[in-house]
């Protein structure tokens, strides 16, 4: 969209709103912030806006419950409880910046990259293990094969990225033994 001359101006639960601009005038990065508490997320957004970036939040699920409360065991501290209104439906942070020719990365320090990858890996891993346990339990009860196949798809869907990020963390950690 950016290359075609559109810039993001608003996000809603089911919509992205764009306005016309010069092609490739803006660039974007997306960050997974579901592990942050609403206060932490707000503070982070304030910091990024101070740096001259524009930020938008986006939901990762499509859920219209009001008063939703969910537990995120893979998150840390206050980020473990996500509520709507609050941090639920604001799992992704879209960061927009005017293209200036310099690289645009939010995480550059190897230690920080590892920490960020761990938050992604843990979320995928928890969900993968959760569905895998469900699949395992199904061996003890009479469940149609179609349901098991669906569960199996969920397991693969979550565990493949978990493995990918585990390997990525390992690679960065190997480099950290020599380079900072």
């Amino acid at each position, binding site marked *: 969209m950016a290359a075609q001359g559109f810039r993001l101006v608003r996000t809603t639960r089911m919509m992205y709103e764009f306005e016309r601009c010069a092609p490739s005038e803006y660039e974007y990065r997306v960050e997974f912030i579901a592990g942050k508490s609403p206060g932490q997320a707000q503070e*982070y957004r304030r910091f990024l806006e*101070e*740096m001259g970036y524009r930020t938008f939040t986006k939901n990762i699920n499509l859920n219209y419950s009001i008063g939703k409360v969910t537990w995120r065991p893979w998150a840390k501290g206050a980020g473990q409880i996500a509520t709507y209104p609050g941090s639920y439906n604001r799992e992704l942070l879209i960061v927009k910046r005017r293209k200036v020719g310099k690289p645009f990365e*939010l*995480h*550059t*320090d190897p*230690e920080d990259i590892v920490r960020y990858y761990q938050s992604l890996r843990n979320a995928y891993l928890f969900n993968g293990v959760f569905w895998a346990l469900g699949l395992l339990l199904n061996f003890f009860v009479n469940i149609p094969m179609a349901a098991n196949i669906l569960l199996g798809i969920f397991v693969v869907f979550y565990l493949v990225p978990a493995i990918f990020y585990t390997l990525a963390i390992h690679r960065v950690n190997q480099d950290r033994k020599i380079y900072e």
Partner: protein
Amino acid sequence: MRDHVRGGALTETTFFVLLALYRPNHGYGIMQFIEQETHGRLSLGAGTLYGAINALLKKGWIAPYDEEQDSRKKLYLITGEGRKVAEKELKRLNSLCETARRIIEGSGEGE
């Protein structure tokens, strides 16, 4: 951010953030300082800088600088403890450089 208590070595990011805060500075100013001082070699991502600032605030090596309450941007300044840490790091680096110079630059003498 690693504690570095054992080896006492700071990461380059930590050391540069401390140096950038010998004068009151805000996030964008810290980023610019580092880019200028390293001639663009080191360019910190905003997420990494945010993590570094928070870790240093927790350690008490930097503190919010409140004189400009009206300023929209949050300012930070190095603390006394932060200065001690930076000075110690300077000594460590000097000692490392001395060893490196002796070995690397002195290695051609015998040839």
